[in-house]
């Protein structure tokens, strides 16, 4: 009789050397998993019972193997854990994540294609199966890890080379290599090559990730009608792959078909309500469509599912109270007291959850005052306005463009013209290169010069970028400085200027003054939150500047 284990053709994995994290809330099963790992030779095994402890454990230690139950009671579920670990880069490139589920047919619904575990295991299973899965997953992960490491370092060309070499030597992993290859090409914006790759796969077989890939490239190339056609096909062929709906709705929205976009998202939400991002988008589109009921329902769900999530933001809280306010304004039959109570409870959850962020507290206070004005509760309006005024000076970071508009609108509505105008002025200085924002700001401001000046700064910035692209760096710098005279604290122009100064240094003007000036400009950027989309560029330019300074 043959021993199935001896039959394995994979190299031996030495489990005694591997650190293992087991995430399981059910003690009996946790014990049985640990037992299986010990039988395989495992020695370094940690056990946690909920998602928060799991995230903490992964911050403290880089595990080789993570076994997580999908269903963890009231805490974060296994999928949320995986998404957080990947998003916050808490997993090493060779780590293997195995999701344990009670029922395998739902597995695909749970997992977004972008965040898939290395393997799903359906209960019940025995130690032999676990070992076989781990052997295979570890073998594959180790083999592909050079690609993943290079992609993490954004060395796309080198990653592409690895994809090619590894696929040549291991035909078994050709598909996995093609998928990485596609991601590299997309990051390099080599859309034609990326499209050719996925189209070829789809013509042979409609595989969900490849089909999504084709649509994503149509989208990136702004071929919206083709994208709509493809994503529609995809939702028909794979009705349970929910990213198809997300993409379809996104494109429908962009081409100005918000009603259809809402219908598409509602289909996805019906199939899987448990998705924060999807509920938020649905709420926003429903708001646009003046569908207050759908808006309320969607933001209500977003707040609910966000309670366990690291991706929760103040947006869904504020929007939920806004939609409740809209219901109060409309003369619906809804129980008014119930709506009021709900809104108060949402505000208190919001204030509690983000209690350490004065910017969010400020936004909440303004929204709270605005909400109280709906019921003419003058006492509350004054209370929250005074809170807002006290918080305003404590805000350390730039307020985002959308948030600035929302706050300005509320303050105007409450008759706080002065504060409204100063918030808008700051926002215009930061975001004048965003045409959608300027359009809204123009409607709100009474200061005609503000918009006029921002146009000037924008023109100067555009002109400078043109010089930069023709490699005339000194002239580019000249125009960036002129733009900075109008908008001295604009982060983008400052960063553009820093980049230009570094280029000047690199391309021959080996003058230390250039680097010192870059350093000075960077040190002037003090109000950038690390969650700000501009932060990454700021930190990369800071790193480069320091590197060049050290090299002198």
């Amino acid at each position, binding site marked *: *009789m*043959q021993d*199935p284990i001896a*039959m*394995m*053709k994979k190299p031996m994995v030495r489990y005694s050397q591997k650190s293992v994290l087991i995430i399981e809330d*059910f003690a*009996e*099963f946790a*014990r*049985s998993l640990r*037992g299986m790992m010990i039988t395989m030779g495992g020695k370094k095994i940690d056990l946690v019972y909920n998602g928060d402890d799991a995230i903490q454990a992964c911050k403290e230690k880089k595990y080789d193997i993570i076994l997580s139950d999908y269903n963890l009671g009231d805490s974060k579920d296994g999928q949320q854990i995986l998404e957080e670990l990947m998003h916050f880069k808490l997993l090493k490139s060779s780590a293997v994540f195995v999701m344990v589920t*009670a*029922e*395998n*047919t*739902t*597995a*695909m*619904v749970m997992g977004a294609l972008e965040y898939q575990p290395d393997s*799903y295991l*359906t*209960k*019940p*299973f*025995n130690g*032999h*199966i676990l070992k*076989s*899965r781990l052997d*295979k997953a570890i073998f594959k992960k180790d083999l592909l890890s050079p690609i993943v490491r290079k992609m993490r370092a954004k060395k796309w060309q080198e990653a592409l080379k690895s994809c090619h070499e590894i696929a040549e030597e291991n*035909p*078994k992993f*050709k*598909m996995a290599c093609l998928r990485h290859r596609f991601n590299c090409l997309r990051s390099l914006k080599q859309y034609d090559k990326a499209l050719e790759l996925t189209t070829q796969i789809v013509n042979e*077989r*409609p*595989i*969900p990730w490849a089909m999504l890939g084709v649509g994503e490239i149509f989208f990136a190339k702004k071929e919206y009608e083709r994208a709509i056609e493809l994503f529609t096909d995809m939702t028909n062929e*794979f*009705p*349970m*792959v929910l990213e198809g709906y997300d993409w379809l709705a996104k494109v429908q929205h962009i081409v100005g078909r918000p009603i259809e976009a809402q219908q598409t998202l509602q289909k996805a939400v019906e*199939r899987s309500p448990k998705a924060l991002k999807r509920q938020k988008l649905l709420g926003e589109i429903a708001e646009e469509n003046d569908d207050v009921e759908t808006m309320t329902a969607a933001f209500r769900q977003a707040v609910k599912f966000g309670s366990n999530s690291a991706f929760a933001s103040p947006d869904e809280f504020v929007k939920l109270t806004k939609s409740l306010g809209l219901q109060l304004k409309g003369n619906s039959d809804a129980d008014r007291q119930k709506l009021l109570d709900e809104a108060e409870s949402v505000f208190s959850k919001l204030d509690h959850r983000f209690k350490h962020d004065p910017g969010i507290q400020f936004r909440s206070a303004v929204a709270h005052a605005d909400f109280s004005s709906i019921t003419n509760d003058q006492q509350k309006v004054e209370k929250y306005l005074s809170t807002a005024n006290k918080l305003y000076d404590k805000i350390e970071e730039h307020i985002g463009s959308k948030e600035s508009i929302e706050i300005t609108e509320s303050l105007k509505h409450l008759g706080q013209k002065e504060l409204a105008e100063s918030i808008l002025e700051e926002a215009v200085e930061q975001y004048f290169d965003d045409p959608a924002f300027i359009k809204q700001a123009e409607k709100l401001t009474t200061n005609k010069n503000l918009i006029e000046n921002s146009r000037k700064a924008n023109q100067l910035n555009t002109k400078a970028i043109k010089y930069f692209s023709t490699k005339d760096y000194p002239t580019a710098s000249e125009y960036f400085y002129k733009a900075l005279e109008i908008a001295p604290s604009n982060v983008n122009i400052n960063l553009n200027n820093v980049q230009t100064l570094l280029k000047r240094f690199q391309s021959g003007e080996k003058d230390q003054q250039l680097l010192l000036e870059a350093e000075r400009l960077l040190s002037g950027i003090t109000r950038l939150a690390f969650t700000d989309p501009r932060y990454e560029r700021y930190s990369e330019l800071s790193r480069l500047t320091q590197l060049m300074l050290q090299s002198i």
Partner: protein
Amino acid sequence: MKSETALFSTVLASTVHDMKNSLGMMLDAVNTILGDIPNEAKQRNSAQCGVVQYESSRVNNSLMQLLAIYKIENNQLPFNPSYHNLYDFVEEQIIAHTPLLDAKGFEFEIDIDDELEIVFDDSLLTMVITNIVGNAIRYAHSKVLITYELDQGTTIKICDDGPGYPSQMIELAGDYIQGINQSTGSTGLGLFFAQKVAEMHQHGENRGSIYLENGGPLGGGVFKITIP
């Protein structure tokens, strides 16, 4: 009338779900007990241990098939085809049955080109193959062979050295829901489900199918599932 049927299905589905949870907890408990038994005693009772594990995984598999059928009827069953290595896939189905194979002293053989990559939904096909292999071990004498054929797609063949399929079952070809027969203990569920899963796999004009025959390389039953 129709809505009553739908209501019944929903009740059935949630009950099945609940049963599965109970079964899962029972199995965990059994495994814990087994872990505490000294090796000597375990070897003495290895046949019984194998039976407990096999029979419970059989019940579990049936429950999962029931749930899956419920979802097919309600258009909720995710279908996520992808490229998989056929050898690795089949090997794992065998490994899942290790306790029973050991207990019964069975021999098995996989005769599949280890470079063959084909497109299928692995979680669905796992339920099908696990069930068929389990039945083969249950009814055959001492040997199972899994092999394949390439023609209009890939056909996985599970052959055994048992008494073969009853002729009335073979004649049902394509209509396995009719196979429900109280007297033989055959519920027809496994084959009905296998057929549903096979049909979900399509490529161009071709649809997947299943086929039963007797004889084959080991002289017993042969189960074939074709994935286009």
